[in-house]
């Protein structure tokens, strides 16, 4: 059982994450010129790997220049690690090429599936947590880490429903994947909050059940609200709003347990002006400082 004061040795965390223990932002195409023009004081930028799997043009031009000035986190959204079928070897090759080109400090993906056979569904879909799924996810992560020759971080999911055939609790499933594969954890605090509300779990209990010694990066984001057939509050991880107060508070509690770790403000929809995102990043930086980060 992982305890709530499970501080990793610095070497463990350094091996899992080369990003500085500061706030970072998702790099938006609409902000390329502003970032290069003003070179804001920010810990790192993160991009979705698939957006940069193009031959040339402005995306590579700007990412190349921005990479010279900032650490980079490469975040995959299309590998489909939880798929029933084999991983797309072509896609792994594209990832490998991108990593070779940009030498990101971190590569992460999701505990989810997004492809079935040849069809890509462009969403992070939920898994039944049982032994066959556990074996398959571990095999896929082994294949990724062997191909890329580096450890990856796996992000805990936001989910809206469960499977009757699940036999393993989600946090325990993640703990076992990380123990067996040696990958790190991308701790998405918004996903914890969203899933815990949706599945009536206690967020702190869930947080404490995760393998916090393996956290290599944290994600913070906003959610949208919906309701299920009983009219019960259902939270949607839509990355379309500022980080909620409840998520900030859970983030504070996570930092108390694990110390300062690179933290991304994720925003993919209704993207505001760059300075609005910077203000959220500064809020995270402040909490990281309190947690013992840079002076």
């Amino acid at each position, binding site marked *: 059982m992982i305890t709530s004061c499970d501080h990793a040795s610095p070497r463990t965390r350094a091996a899992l994450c080369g990003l500085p223990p500061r706030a970072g932002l998702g790099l938006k195409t609409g902000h390329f010129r502003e970032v290069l023009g003003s070179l804001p004081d920010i810990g790192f930028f993160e991009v979705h790997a698939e957006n940069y799997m193009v031959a040339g043009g402005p995306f590579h031009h700007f990412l190349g220049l921005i990479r010279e000035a900032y650490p980079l986190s490469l975040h995959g959204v299309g590998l489909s690690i939880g798929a029933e079928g084999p991983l797309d070897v072509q896609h792994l090759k594209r990832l490998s090429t991108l990593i070779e080109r940009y030498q990101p400090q971190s590569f992460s993906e999701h505990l989810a599936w997004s492809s079935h056979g040849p069809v890509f569904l462009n969403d992070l879909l939920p898994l039944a947590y049982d032994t066959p799924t556990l074996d398959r996810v571990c095999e896929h992560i082994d294949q990724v880490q062997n191909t890329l020759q580096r450890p990856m971080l796996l992000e805990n999911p936001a989910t809206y429903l469960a*499977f009757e055939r699940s036999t393993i609790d989600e946090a325990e499933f993640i703990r076992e994947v990380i123990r067996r594969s040696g990958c790190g954890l991308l701790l998405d605090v918004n996903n914890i909050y969203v899933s815990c509300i949706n599945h009536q779990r206690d967020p702190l209990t869930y947080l404490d059940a995760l393998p916090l010694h393996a956290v290599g990066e944290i994600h913070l984001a906003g959610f949208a609200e919906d309701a299920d057939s009983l009219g019960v509050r259902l939270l949607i991880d839509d990355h379309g709003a500022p980080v909620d107060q409840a998520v900030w508070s859970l983030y504070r509690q996570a930092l108390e347990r694990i110390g300062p770790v690179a933290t991304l403000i994720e925003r993919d929809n209704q993207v505001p002006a760059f300075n609005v995102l910077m203000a959220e990043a500064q809020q995270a930086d402040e909490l990281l400082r309190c947690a013992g980060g840079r002076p």
Partner: protein
Amino acid sequence: MSTQAVFSAALLDTGLPCPDGLCSVNGADPASRFAVYRNNVQRSLSNALVDSYPVVMQLVGEEFFRAMAGVFIQNHPPRSPLMSDYGSDLADFISGFEPASSVPYLADVARLERLRTQAYHAADIAPLSQERIAAAFADQEGLSRLQIGLHPSLHVLDSAFAVVDIWAAHQHDATLAGINLDQAQHALVLRNGLEVEVFAVDPGASQFIGQLKAGLSLTEALESAEAFDLSQTLALLISRQAITHLHHKVSP
């Protein structure tokens, strides 16, 4: 069928029931929660098409576009996680989509927007300097065998409609007033530095550029094209940094 096969099919076909074997901790109907995933998939794919085809959407309105996108998504889901490729076959779909038949130029506008996306992401190849190009053209002896390599972003589109004018009108005030819609136009699309540019060229120039792209020599391409202003066309290609290679074709 496997769990993910059933799940995947029901995400794409909104007429299918919610898959079996799902549950929610509070006893809510799993269908109301499955609906979140279905909505995410439909919405994200529809948004990807909206982003790629802004003028097509302006021409038919968002409501029609999203309804058409829904039919397209169900029949042509993505086959790759690279969303920049998604909808590359939308123009062909529009050609056969009966409800859109009253807008006969819609498919060609989609083709033009697709070429713009392709040009935006095309490989980076440095253009030849104007001096190098001038020197090659000054060599009268080699001119007949000269082959002109064009930037990978460059494409031509031949349309029976005023596709360039229709597209250009939607970059400003989105009015088609004053445009003769049935005037055939030939679009030249290329990326000049970081900017994608669109030009209307003469039919002969379009044929000539198409033949250069197919690997014909300057002379062969000229012979197979109807009359056009060669110096003006070459000046356009040079000024837009579209010439990336020059070499002499070996005689057969």
